[in-house]
């Protein structure tokens, strides 16, 4: 079979191989790169993702790294990994289990093997498999030799040795030379999966432009890895995953934090306001600060404040001056910002507060994901301090949700919380690039003239006079003649905004602020339910980053004949106005969350619907197979099928190509 790809101009290969290479078609692959924190696994994963995106596959990624910058080399806590799921069809998650594991050292093998199903391919760099290194992580014997990996398709290779050999002409120390081993590994898997490689070479050329030795060594190692696949007898098969069928358009790959940064800029631009970000570095939110700091030309000001309180303070101060004030943080920082957010509720000024959630409580697990800040952002302020809460459902959705947050903040003059999480922040997916002109416009509607007359009949400005439809207050910014006024955290008299301790006025203002937030529901779309033939008795309802895993679980259940409806919330306060009716129209509502049931609690309280909570708080995204099982079981339980007679959950969990939308896509042969 002549299968060699002719379109690799950067590879000028000597044809040493005697056997022909077979190409197998796959519909999807989950690959995981794992190594020491210092091995460059995140970079390797990013590059493989970029190659895969430019090839046109659908994809979803899951970086997973320790909080320590460089935990001791070779130890289990120091292992960093990057998982990528790519397919010739629409997929929703980074995949539960890898089909291919690349382990750069013994610790990476040990830490990741438990996730790898039997039969999967395991490529191991053998260079570090010394007795001492093995002992350090609790291996008494070399697992590559004991036969304990027989159930896997094990490919042991001295990647480090081959890397050093391939770059010897550059005269680097062995240590420096071996640092290119991640590029060697990337070259090899790029060959294995027929990835286009030009972008990686260009990337290396730019990244190391100022260090020619390192640049050349990395490129040489990358090519050598690719060539090794071409020539080595270990590899008689290459795999092909065809581009996915996606709607026509221009696509790019994007991570959640980048999408959020771009969405904030887009929101400010569509409102015609300068953007002022006040932020204090914190994982996993810092990248939003980094990205926005690069965008000064868009009239973006970034203030790295002395702490989170100052960050939100600066943002609110800028909003007072007529900018779109934004602050970005994670749970611990949001706690610090609470008092200022409450001030924003009282002042009724626009403010966008992004909480990129991480595992808590307290410092928790900074690099791990969680959804446990929902109740904090809903209620974590003194007094009755309602504010809108939104949640992005996928990395790319962070863009749209940021614009929606800007719309609500500016239109209703209110702080708005945007919830993302570590999984969305660092994960990425292909994104159909929006046409900027089609994005919604946002109208700040500044007050420029007196809006009332006083007792003496003179024109005057009442800062708390409200729009009857939105209940948004009049917003005049400093510099506007004759509209000077004073606002503050003390309770205000209706309309005038003057300090008031009047009991009835306080009650009125409390109810008005609540009604304003509740009324936002009139401006948001009703929740859509995906219930293909309308006969499901069970609804799965999620919010935030569980969208992908829930969708993947639902697809599995449907593939084995289960009837299940799915809906997802992007607006958590206020809820879409039809939510109560939707909940009541199903026999059971399942709410999976990465917390102990926080949305479930809100739904029970508001709608008196006894939702079923599925709560897992492991710092990792929920698994598709696990959700398929839970959903399947609940569907049968609801149908009155006894415990021991149930099979739907198990069958759904076992579905192999669970994320394909229809069976035709699975005609191609699997990896094994």
């Amino acid at each position, binding site marked *: 079979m002549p299968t060699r790809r002719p379109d690799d101009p950067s590879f000028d290969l000597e044809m040493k191989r005697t056997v022909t290479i077979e190409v197998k078609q796959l519909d999807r692959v989950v690959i995981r790169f794992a190594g020491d924190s210092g091995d460059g696994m995140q970079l390797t994963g990013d590059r493989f993702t970029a190659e895969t995106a430019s090839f046109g596959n659908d994809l979803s990624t899951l970086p997973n790294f320790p909080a320590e910058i460089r935990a001791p080399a070779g130890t289990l806590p120091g292992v960093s990994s990057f998982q990528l799921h790519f397919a010739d069809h629409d997929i929703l998650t980074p995949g539960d289990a890898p089909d291919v594991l690349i382990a750069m050292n013994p610790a990476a093998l040990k830490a990741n093997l438990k996730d790898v199903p039997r039969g999967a391919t395991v490529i191991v760099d053998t260079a570090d498999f010394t007795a001492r290194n093995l002992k350090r992580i609790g291996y008494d014997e070399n697992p590559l030799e004991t036969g304990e990996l027989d159930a896997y398709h094990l490919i042991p290779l001295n990647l480090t040795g081959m890397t050093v050999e391939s770059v010897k002409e550059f005269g680097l120390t062995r240590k420096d030379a071996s640092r290119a081993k991640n590029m060697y590994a990337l070259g090899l898997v790029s060959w294995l999966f027929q990835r286009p490689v030009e972008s990686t070479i260009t990337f290396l050329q730019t990244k190391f432009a100022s260090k020619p030795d390192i640049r050349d060594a990395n490129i040489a190692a990358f090519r050598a890895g690719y060539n090794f696949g071409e020539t080595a007898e270990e590899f008689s098969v290459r795999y092909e995953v065809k581009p996915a069928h996606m709607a*026509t358009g221009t696509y790019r790959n994007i991570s959640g934090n980048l999408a959020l940064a771009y969405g904030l800029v887009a929101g400010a631009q569509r409102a015609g306001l300068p953007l002022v970000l006040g932020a204090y570095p914190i994982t996993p939110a810092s990248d939003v600060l980094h990205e926005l700091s690069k965008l000064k030309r868009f009239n973006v000001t970034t203030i790295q404040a002395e702490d989170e309180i100052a960050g939100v303070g600066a943002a609110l101060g*800028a909003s007072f001056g007529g900018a779109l004030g934004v602050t970005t943080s994670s749970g611990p920082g949001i706690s610090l910002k609470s008092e200022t957010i409450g001030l924003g509720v009282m002042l009724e000024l626009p403010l966008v507060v992004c909480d990129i959630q991480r595992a808590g409580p307290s410092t928790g697990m900074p690099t791990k994901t969680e959804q446990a800040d929902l109740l904090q952002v809903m209620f974590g302020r003194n007094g009755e301090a309602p504010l809108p809460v939104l949640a992005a459902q996928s990395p790319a959705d962070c863009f749209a949700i940021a614009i929606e947050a800007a719309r609500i903040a500016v239109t209703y003059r209110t702080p708005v919380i945007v919830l993302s999480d570590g999984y969305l922040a660092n994960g990425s997916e292909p994104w159909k690039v929006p046409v900027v002109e089609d994005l919604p416009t946002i109208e700040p509607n500044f007050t420029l003239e007196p809006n009332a007359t006083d007792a003496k009949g003179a024109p005057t400005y009442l800062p708390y006079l409200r729009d009857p439809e939105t209940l948004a207050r009049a917003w005049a910014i400093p510099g506007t003649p004759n509209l000077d006024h004073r606002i503050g955290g003390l309770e205000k008299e209706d309309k005038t905004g003057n300090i008031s301790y009047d009991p009835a006025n306080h009650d009125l203002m409390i109810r008005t602020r609540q009604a304003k937030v509740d009324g936002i529901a009139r401006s948001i779309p009703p929740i859509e339910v995906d219930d293909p033939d309308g006969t499901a008795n069970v609804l799965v309802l999620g919010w935030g980053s569980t969208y992908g895993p829930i969708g993947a679980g639902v697809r599995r259940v449907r593939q084995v004949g289960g009837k299940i409806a799915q809906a997802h919330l992007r607006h958590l306060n206020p809820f879409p106005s039809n939510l109560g009716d939707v909940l009541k129209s199903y026999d059971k509502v399942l709410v999976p969350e990465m917390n102990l049931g926080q949305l479930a609690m809100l739904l029970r309280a508001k709608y008196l619907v006894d939702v079923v909570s599925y709560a897992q708080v492991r710092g990792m995204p929920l698994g598709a197979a696990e959700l398929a099982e839970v959903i399947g079981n609940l569907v049968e339980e609801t149908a009155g099928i006894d415990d021991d007679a149930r099979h739907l959950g198990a069958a759904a969990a076992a579905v192999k190509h669970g994320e394909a939308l229809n069976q035709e896509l699975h005609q191609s042969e699997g990896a094994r």
Partner: protein
Amino acid sequence: MSTVDLGLPSLPGGLKGVPAATEPQNRKEYVSDQEVRWCPGCGDYAVLAAFQGFLPELGIKRENVAMVSGIGCSSRFPYYLSTYGMHSIHGRAPAIATGLAVSRPDLSVWVVTGDGDALSIGGNHLIHTLRRNVNLKILLFNNRIYGLTKGQYSPTSETGKVTKSTPMGSVDNPFNPVSLALGAEATFVARTVDSDRKHLTSVLRAAAEHRGTSFVEIYQNCPIFNDNAFDAFKDPETRDDAIIPLVHGEPIRFGTDGHLGVVRDGFASLAVREVADLPGGEADLVIHDAHTEDPAYAFALSRLTDAGVLHQAPIGIFRSVERPAYDDLVRQQITTSQEAQGTGDLQALVTGADTWTVN
């Protein structure tokens, strides 16, 4: 990480960028319709009156004045002025004002704060604002007590202060606000007294004209919870010996008939001496130079303040030096990047460099 040459802009006065008033203004225009609610005899009244009288002099548009305060008796200040104002939360006014000043170069931004507000709960924001040198004017009303919460000791109360929360006397060492500000390398640091309207106004004027953060400590009497704390500076019997007057370019000489003066004393330190005892007489006195770059000089001056009950303290402008203002530099970077790369093409940004097309 490397550092870069910031291409520093020239150093304009504190009001540069703020539109000038087209008509002369008077004091009444700056008085709001809100009833003032401080206790009778409170020093805040005098400061308010001086401030209302001083604002028209600045010659800027009234709508371009913005007052931001924290929480405390003194922080009610903005309500009584017919300018834009925000009465914010405890300790956070400098942070909020930073966001406002950075995004609005056309405003004259003032922060009103108390000794508890600025130095206790808000200490962090204060030092960072001073270090950055944001173009805003901070008025710290120091009554050496928590007024609004009814009389607990504050970070400026003298050790041993008996209050409701310290029935056996406070045991902590107080801050000297001027020393603290100078430690943070503030570029404009002054001290004045609520009851001396003329001096207060002259300091406010200098503060307004300074580009960068102006820090003004105002000795303010709280007749309810800490009465007479500053009597040494007000009583005609004692004030001449109590006030060490700082006048730029003049020898620091004071006391009845000028019998006292400030001289250099050991390593980086200053002392008060009888002029008559000095070998060179007045020639031995320190000539006050507020423009001294090294903050050590102004710091040494600040140490002439009594730490306990106040009997003597320098009053006036300790330091006034030029350093680029944070907000100017932040805006400059925006301008520079726009000059280099244009004003930002959103479509190009979201599209990025690595795209593929599905037909």
